[in-house]
């Protein structure tokens, strides 16, 4: 304050005095005396010559002949000294406070070296400017708060950023109390100049006035109602130099559910929170709450999806009982929508027992499809002892899945596999699924003659089982329509189709199972290119070539546990 401001001519003119200053010093008219702005006249030695009514109101004790230094504030007396000593015309303005008002003072020279000081009350404009600057700063801050908080969907980081920004802009210390998890609350502490710390503790939220209500989303208790002396010790961050002088407890409103509460602290050495600051704290809390609940919702959604995906991930396949298995699963790119393709291999209890392979596809996408996939896999696992009879297994599975609410169905292939000598015997049953393909040693590709009805929507299921024998080096491929219905190619809208698949398979004659599924996945992916694709699942069952037998023998000694799940 008190900085000399460049007076604008407009302000000077608006002082409204019609009086010529030179004549004013000589004869003071009634208009001058009653002018609405304070005017004082002082001689070159700093003695008061004249003052009008408005000036008399400011300095009621002042009388003619007083020294300016003893009467008016020092900034005006000093400005007078400088001006009287011969400052150039048009300069010499000063500004400063007189009691609780703010004035700009404009000097004009008068006869005999006297100086007339015209004082313009600038208080209201200054207040308005300060309020405007404050409002601009606050809205910039709120925008900053939103952009900082919304840039992260990590709940912990979001809480830390909220506490940190609260101490940067609102209070000396801040504590963010998250909604309870069981009896414990996650607490995020911050204080100005210190680190952000976190703790989880079973604190009593009723000990802080208004906190329990704020956590339930009720409106905040006015700051003046909270006695800082009542606060429990856990509210203050470890490094905060108390005692607490004033407190704000603000709810963090979320989307429908409260996202927690924010406690703001100021030490007793600082000014207490004003009404404006309290209001602003609520706006801040509203932004923080929206960001926090978005982060919380996202985190929950992501963890549900991750849990489901983990359960639905297909197993990694290896050799079991002298038969080679390889599987590949490529989920649809749209990774929030869990797809409906799946496969499983249930090894037989010994080399003489059949191993059951299941590959299937559930109609639809998303959670509903995922739930049905999980049901099918679990039910089939439970039905394993009956798997020697495919038709019965499918009938039981069908009745377990039928629902009057929807017609969501699955198509699947059951393959019971057993090695006999150097050959592999397969019993294949399709339940409404694409028939498995057999790749013979000479490159012939055969479609297996199994046909049956889909599972989960019809009152009765029918099926026909095919018996196939694989000689060493031959492969049976189970696949989902994600392969044949992959859209792409040179024109971008052509189906990969079963003819192309058969041609590719013919070129794969004699290749190991692993190489075949890799190749098909790769070609299907290339076919689709950057376009969107559905889930693609493939399982190859191969009779190992004679040269591989020693390796197979080694695997066999490991018993029935040679396949394991991913992750």
């Amino acid at each position: 304050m008190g900085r000399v401001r460049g007076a604008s001519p407009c302000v000077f003119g608006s002082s409204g005095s019609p009086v010529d200053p030179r004549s004013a010093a000589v004869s003071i008219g009634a208009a001058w005396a009653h002018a609405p702005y304070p005017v004082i006249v002082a001689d070159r030695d700093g003695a008061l010559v004249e003052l009008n009514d408005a000036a008399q109101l400011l300095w009621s004790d002042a009388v003619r002949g007083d020294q300016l230094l003893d009467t008016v504030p020092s900034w005006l007396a000093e400005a007078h000294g400088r001006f009287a000593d011969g400052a150039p015309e048009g300069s010499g303005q000063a500004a400063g406070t007189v009691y609780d008002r703010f004035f700009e003072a404009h000097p004009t020279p008068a006869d005999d070296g006297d100086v007339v000081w015209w004082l313009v009350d600038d208080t209201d404009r200054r207040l308005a400017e300060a309020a405007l600057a404050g409002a601009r700063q606050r809205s910039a801050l709120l925008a900053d708060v939103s952009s900082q908080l919304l840039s992260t969907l990590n709940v912990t980081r979001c809480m830390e950023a909220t506490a940190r920004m609260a101490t940067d802009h609102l209070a000396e210390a801040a504590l963010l109390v998250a909604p309870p998890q069981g009896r414990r609350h996650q607490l995020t502490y911050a204080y100005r100049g210190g680190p952000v710390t976190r703790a989880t503790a079973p604190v009593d939220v009723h000990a802080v006035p208004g906190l329990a209500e704020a956590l339930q989303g009720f409106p905040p208790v006015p700051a003046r109602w909270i006695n800082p002396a009542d606060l429990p010790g856990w509210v203050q961050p470890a490094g905060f130099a108390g005692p607490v002088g004033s407190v704000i407890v603000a709810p963090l409103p979320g989307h429908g559910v409260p996202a927690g509460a924010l406690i703001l602290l100021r030490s007793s050495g600082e000014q207490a929170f004003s009404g404006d600051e309290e209001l602003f704290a609520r706006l801040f809390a509203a932004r923080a709450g929206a960001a926090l609940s978005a982060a919380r919702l996202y985190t929950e959604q992501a963890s549900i999806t991750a849990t489901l995906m983990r359960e639905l991930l297909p197993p990694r396949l290896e050799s079991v009982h002298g038969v080679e298995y390889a599987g590949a699963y490529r989920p649809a790119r749209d990774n929030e929508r869990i797809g409906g393709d799946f496969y499983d291999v249930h090894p037989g209890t010994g080399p003489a027992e059949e191993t059951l392979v299941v590959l299937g596809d559930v109609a639809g996408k998303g959670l509903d499809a995922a739930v049905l996939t999980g049901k099918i896999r679990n039910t089939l696992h439970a039905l394993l002892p009956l798997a020697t009879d495919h038709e019965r297994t499918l009938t039981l599975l069908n009745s377990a899945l039928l629902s009057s609410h929807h017609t969501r169905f699955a198509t699947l292939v059951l393959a019971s596999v057993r090695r006999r000598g150097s050959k592999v015997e397969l019993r294949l049953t399709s339940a409404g699924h694409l028939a498995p393909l057999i790749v013979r040693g000479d490159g012939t590709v055969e479609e297996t003659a199994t046909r049956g009805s889909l599972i989960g929507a019809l009152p009765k299921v029918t099926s026909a089982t095919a018996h196939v024998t694989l000689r060493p080096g031959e492969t049976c491929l189970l696949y989902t329509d994600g392969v044949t219905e992959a859209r792409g190619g040179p024109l971008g809208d052509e189906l990969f189709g079963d003819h192309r698949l058969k041609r590719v398979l013919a070129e794969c004659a004699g290749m190991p199972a692993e190489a075949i599924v890799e190749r098909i996945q790769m070609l299907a992916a290339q076919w689709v290119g950057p376009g969107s694709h559905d889930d693609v699942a493939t399982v190859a069952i191969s009779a190992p070539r004679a040269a591989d037998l020693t390796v197979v023998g080694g695997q066999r000694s490991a018993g029935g546990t040679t396949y394991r799940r991913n992750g």
Partner: protein
Amino acid sequence: MTALPPPALRLTVTHGAHELTVDVAGDLDLDTGDHLVETVTEHLARRPEVRGVRLDFAELAWIDSAGLSALLMVHRRACAAGRALHLDRRPDLLERLLRQTGTLDHLTARPGQDEDATGTNTT
């Protein structure tokens, strides 16, 4: 002027004396299946005298498993209301899907011939 792309599935409903005919044109899939089920259900509820529903697939461009699921639901609703379902002018695409999934006989069976899962045999 806004020129919106044509909808993926276009349904044209014609009322005969005793039958309801729905021309199913375009793609019947995950996004459009519900629309077919709702349309047929609505028209059946409004016209109790109708004895059968004909779905005409002459202009069907694409159907996937979710589309088939919708057909099964249409069949279930029609049977529950005692109406026969006819699937007319089936393109190869649809014919193959129905045969592969073993649903052709079920979908075209007359009501009463086939004890349908309309609530009796459910989970």
